[in-house]
């Protein structure tokens, strides 16, 4: 496979060098825009577009054209779109997938065909370890590290007894594993909820009965909204503290949850109030362009664009994949999260911060960075299995 990819790369170099320099480089974005998870893909796409617009239709000084298609959270659909982008449109740089199951069906095809894939979100463990690939980059995080940071933070805060919950699917199980890897205390209860569950009353009763020091839960999107509302309605908010990782409470779900989230501790690799030049530029542009608060998905979409820009700049706009990936691995761009580099498996090595939900200036709850670093230069446990 590797050899084939290499040959493919050489062939495309030849093709690319003959192409006109003026022609924009096409970037394919396969993302989820319909259904309950649609807002995640929307934020990734809008932020990516923003990065292009800020450069006046260019990335790294190279004119680009973004082709976006909706995978509707169907693995087959994602693969179909990838086939078309790779074979008919001859696209060499792809990005955008939100969900792990779409990535599972789509990413192997992309990297095997010799194209570059830059993940702005999904990063399942199987692509981080043994099956890592030179053409596969992740700018977000490895799934486990999200929850490892929460486990570490719960330990740092001195909690001894944790009650942990997640939906009964792979990402949920990974979440609880990740949390337990870093949490030094005792687990008072471990509950797997259901992926199509909307009512969490039985779980609330179990939490109350177990009377833990802290609750950790992983419920992305709408599940998290329902969970937090019911946590407050059950009278647990303010009584039992909760630590969670960012997927369970992003800016959008925070807006929908409202005051039911006050006082929660969140761990994240990015927040809208980060004090660095890149983030200030991003926030200013975003606020101007869109009338909603950016989620961390948006920051990842923006960073994916910057990473691609850095690679395009280095190759001078040539879509020569080996050259592109050598340039990309240097991570020569200013991430909105601050320090950023790629580990040996081309997944991020980055810092994790503690956030707190507080009342903002206008009274609505906002996520505020507390200034505490939870983990520094944190990679993932799968990197050691990756032989690149």
């Amino acid at each position, binding site marked *: 496979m590797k050899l084939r990819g290499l040959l493919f790369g050489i062939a495309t170099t030849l093709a690319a060098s003959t192409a006109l320099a003026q022609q924009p480089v096409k970037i394919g974005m396969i993302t989820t*825009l319909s259904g309950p998870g649609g807002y995640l893909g929307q934020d990734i796409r809008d932020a990516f577009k923003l990065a292009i617009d800020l450069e006046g239709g260019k990335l790294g000084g190279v004119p680009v054209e973004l082709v976006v298609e909706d995978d*509707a959270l169907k693995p087959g659909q994602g*693969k*179909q779109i990838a086939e*078309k982008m790779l074979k008919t449109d001859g696209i060499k740089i792809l990005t955008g997938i939100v969900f792990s199951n779409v990535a*599972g069906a789509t990413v192997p095809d992309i990297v095997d065909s010799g194209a570059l894939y830059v993940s702005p979100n999904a990063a399942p463990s*199987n692509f981080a370890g043994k099956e890592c690939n030179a053409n596969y980059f992740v700018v977000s995080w490895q799934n486990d590290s999200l929850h490892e940071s929460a486990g570490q933070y719960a330990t740092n805060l001195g909690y001894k007894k944790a009650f942990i919950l997640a939906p009964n699917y792979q990402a949920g199980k990974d979440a609880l594993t990740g949390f337990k890897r870093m949490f030094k205390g005792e687990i008072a209860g471990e509950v797997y909820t259901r*992926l199509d569950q909307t009512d969490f009353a039985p779980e609330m009763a179990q939490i109350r009965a177990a009377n833990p020091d802290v609750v950790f839960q992983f419920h992305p999107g709408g599940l998290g909204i329902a969970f937090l509302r019911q946590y407050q309605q059950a009278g647990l908010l303010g009584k039992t503290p909760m630590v969670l990782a960012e997927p369970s409470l992003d800016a959008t779900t925070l807006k929908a949850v409202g005051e039911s989230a006050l006082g929660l501790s969140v761990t994240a690799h990015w927040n809208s109030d980060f004090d660095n030049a890149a983030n200030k530029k991003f926030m200013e542009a975003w606020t101007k362009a869109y009338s909603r608060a950016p989620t961390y998905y948006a920051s990842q979409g923006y960073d994916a664009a910057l990473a691609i820009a850095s690679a395009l700049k280095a190759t001078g706009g040539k879509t020569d994949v080996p050259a592109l990936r050598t340039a990309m691995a240097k991570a020569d761009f200013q991430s909105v999260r601050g320090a950023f580099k790629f580990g040996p498996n081309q997944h991020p090595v980055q810092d994790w911060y503690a956030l707190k939900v507080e009342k903002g200036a206008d009274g609505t709850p906002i996520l505020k960075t507390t200034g505490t670093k939870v983990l520094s230069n944190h990679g993932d446990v799968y990197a050691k299995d990756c032989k690149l």
Partner: protein
Amino acid sequence: MSENAITHTEASAPALGRILALLALAIALIALPFIVKALGQPALVPLATRVLIYAIAAASLNLALGFGGMVSFGHAAFFGIGGYAVGILYRTFADDALFLGFIPGTDQLLITLPAAILVAGLFACIIGALSLRTSGVQFIMITLAFAQMLFFLFVSLKAYGGDDGMTIRRRNALFDLNTRDDVTFYFICLAIAALVFLALWRIVGSRFGMVLAGIRQNERRMAAIGIAPYRYKLAAFVISGMGAGLAGALMANYLRFVSPDMLHWTKSGELMIMVILGGVGTLLGPLLGAAALVILETVLTSWTEHWQLVLGPILLLVVLFTQGGLNGLLARLGLGRSAP
């Protein structure tokens, strides 16, 4: 179920026009990879492969649904089981382990496909035997219930990827062919689809098919002339499930990936929609329906992100203003004889 469907298929001597039309369809399908390559659209080959695989699944469902009058809302279960049979055999092969302690893995298409058919048939036998004790709406719902149970089973099977599914790094091998090549794989699927449609045509035209049609129209009358409807219906249901399992096995090979998504009730719904869209109880209707739905989705998603707002009304108009789906529409436009 359009009542004239059965008379179509019963026609003993196929009209010359129909033979010519079938021939034209066969030539078109064989020439397709070369034509699209000449047009510079090589991605259409995998698209056509996907259509063929869904056509196999939908045509199999149609045996139960259109010819047997059993509205199964759970055929995704067999589709998914077929896929997981391939996935689990491949995983066992790759790990050089034994599944359940005694079944060795394999990556040979000639073994995985029959295995998938067998396992899907086994499940169809159990689910069918229980479900056929009910009828009507209750049958629809009980098949759904069994499919949902299997869906949740695979979601919680961590060893096989759970909800994230599992990747099959290489397609199954068939002789010395390069199955990774799109055109080769297309022709494999085309050959299998042709066999399936041929088999279904023979089944529908056989004595078994006649009895099945009789049961659909009037179960009590058939019972009165000494035929046990239950056995015939169960047999048809099992064959139908086996076909869906075969399609699932091909899909797993095509995607090089299986996930519980294949067993979700929306997948059952999609298969049903393909059958209805193409024309219930017609032989080639499911092919037409699968092609229409897959191509529409692909074209519309590349055109607008609000594709559902276009697809919805199109589907609605098809139901409201055509009798018997696209096949019926073609028939009324005077082209009907082309699609038996």
